[in-house]
């Protein structure tokens, strides 16, 4: 007898793999920009991250007896995003450890795709930041690979420490000609990728808009230039690509807005009052923990719910 399937008998053509590869496509422009600004260093870090993510997947397949799933591109996304939040000059073995931990520790240990609590890329970055603080805070100046690599402070670092180095102009920061993590610098190309995702309806406006707006409001109140705060640091990368990660963000539109506002508040607080110059990674990870709670209290009201 034939195996019967339940209704519906037609399905949309969207698949997990398609979504993942779309994210990869959306990240491509910024990837190219990072290679342009930081040279082969950037390319090497990206390749190492992606490969180590795969290694993590294969190892967890053996350790947890898990079915090795088909090539759905989620490791490429994680690897790419991890590479994007690492400094270009990071030793490759560190990037490798990061990629492996992102998949093995942060994702597979919690049950694999769909079950992780924290954003794998950002959690791995945080592990690397506390483990190797020196290497994780050394940033090379953009385009300096053509002569010889110079270490310099990021715009946010300059503001935080109050000394040394000249702030890049807003335009330079917009196109990405500034020191910083590998993929976070080119706001222009990140936004192009983000628009692609918005048009593909893979991400919604809720989290990025509420996130960035909150940062704008708080930094303006604090008397700082909000445009500077958008362009400097990883806010755009975080708001469009990290905080919107399906698995680790709330599922309802209302919850997404709350999540974005929470991220924005924590990011601004860390930037303005905290000891780190940048707070996107920690704020997203922090808010990740609240996702089940937010989900619980932002359930949509069911159709025909009796009004009390």
């Amino acid at each position, binding site marked *: *007898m034939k195996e019967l399937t339940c209704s*519906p008998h037609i399905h949309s053509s969207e698949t997990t793999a398609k979504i993942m590869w779309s994210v990869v496509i959306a990240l491509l422009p910024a990837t190219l920009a990072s290679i342009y600004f930081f040279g082969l260093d950037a390319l090497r870090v990206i390749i190492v991250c992606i490969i180590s993510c795969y290694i993590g997947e294969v190892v967890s397949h053996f350790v947890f007896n898990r079915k090795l799933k088909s090539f759905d591109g989620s490791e490429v996304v994680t690897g790419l995003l991890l590479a994007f939040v690492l400094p270009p000059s990071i030793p490759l073995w560190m990037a490798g450890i990061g990629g492996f931990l992102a998949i093995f520790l942060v994702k597979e240990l919690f049950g694999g795709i769909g079950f992780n609590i924290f954003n794998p890329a950002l959690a791995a970055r945080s592990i690397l930041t506390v483990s190797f603080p020196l290497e994780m805070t050394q940033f090379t100046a953009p385009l300096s690979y053509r002569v010889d690599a110079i270490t310099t402070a990021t715009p946010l670092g300059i503001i935080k420490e109050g000394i040394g180095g000249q702030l890049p102009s807003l335009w330079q920061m917009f196109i990405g000609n500034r020191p910083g993590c590998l993929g976070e610098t080119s706001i222009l190309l990140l936004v192009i990728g983000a628009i692609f995702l918005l048009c593909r309806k893979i991400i919604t406006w809720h989290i990025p808009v509420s996130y960035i707006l909150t940062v704008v409001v708080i930094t303006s109140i604090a008397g700082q230039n909000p445009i500077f705060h958008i362009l400097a640091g990883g806010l755009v990368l975080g708001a469009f690509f990290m905080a919107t990660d399906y698995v680790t963000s709330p599922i309802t539109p209302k919850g997404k807005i709350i999540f974005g506002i929470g991220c924005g508040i924590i990011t601004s607080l860390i930037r303005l009052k905290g000891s780190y110059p940048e707070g996107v990674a920690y704020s997203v990870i922090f808010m990740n923990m609240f996702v089940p709670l937010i989900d619980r209290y932002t359930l949509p009201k069911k*159709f025909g719910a009796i009004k009390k």
Partner: protein
Amino acid sequence: MFQGGVKLVDFKEISKDKVTEDFPAPEKVIIPLSQHTGIPSKPVVKKGDTVLKGQLIGENAGFISSATHSSISGTVAGIENCSLPGGRISTAIIIENDGKDIPVEPVNRNWQDLKPEEIISIVRDSGIVGMGGAAFPSAVKLTIPKGKKADYVILNGCECEPFLTADYRVMIEETDKVVEGLFIICKAIGVKKGYIGIESNKRDLVPLLREAITKFVSEVVVEIKVLPEKYPQGSEKHLIKSVLNKEVPSGGLPVDVGCVVFNIQTALAIRDAVCEGIPLIERVLTVTGLVRNPKNLRTRIGTPVSKILEYCGVELKENTKIVIGGPMMGIQIHTTDIPVIKGTSGILVLPQEFLPEKIQPCIRCGKCIEVCPMRLVPAELGKYAENQKWERCNEFNVSDCIECGCCSYICPAKRPLVDLFKWAKVEIRKAGTK
């Protein structure tokens, strides 16, 4: 307009312009006694009896029950069990055709002269049930419970399921009768306002319907509502929301917001029963999909599906599946010996998808929440059902799910959400009756 839902490619061109053909009465019909929601009807014939077309063979067995009639003339060959779509088994009366097709004596009535109670009793005796799929006895719907009041009747012409065109053909070919049916229903319930809801892909019906309405002199005002194409527009509760902007309370009935909804073909059947005394013995259905000759067929109740497929030129292959109903809510059948029943709106031949291999874990994309017309959280519900946490399912209102299939359709991980919810509902009901 209701929230959620999906926009589907409707595939209606395949059979949209095929004029309804009469499917010749088969040599043998299998008429199940449980074609409707509620108690099965009680057989009143025995093996060897001769029956006429339209003769009562199963009588009403309770309040929520319905009568059953023979759809051909011939002899009763036996009373046996037969399987129905969805794995149900029902007692069925098998009648061998004598080829004469002798009907019971026709009547000619003018509905204007009838009292509402008389109309309702005719409807009950004629075995009319909702023909959109749910097969709820129409007479029960026409009887407004005490303490409640109906102000509107809505005729459901949405046919929001892709592929299906039977209702559309009926509305084109039998416009007058359908509209007359609506007036009869209004009279039976005693309301002054009727609506006909159609989706915008059937806009060409508007002048036809409008013309038909003018043919009847009545105090009832009928309005045609052209609604945007969005699945599941044809769901009773969502149609009411779209037409009247009222939400039927959870667990309630349409009549709680003063409204009663009937399917197009049900209206036609009511009209035929009231004016001509013809009980429900045939219906129009669409045969489409991977079919050489897609058709809209007027078929006798009890015709085996295999005969229809043969007629339309369907070769059964390993990689095809037969679905009774539309692609979103229809039920796949394992054998073509199943008869056409009152709620069969279409027979669909689709390619078999080997879904179980494609199922992946939920990635919480939230698309199912966006599309759920009942505003539930299918993603979470699915996880609870998968882990057999029935109390949690109940807490998250799985019982409100209308099984429209939007969530499963949209899910990028191809999770069998509807399947899980059906399971959860069964388990909850089991726990409830213990």
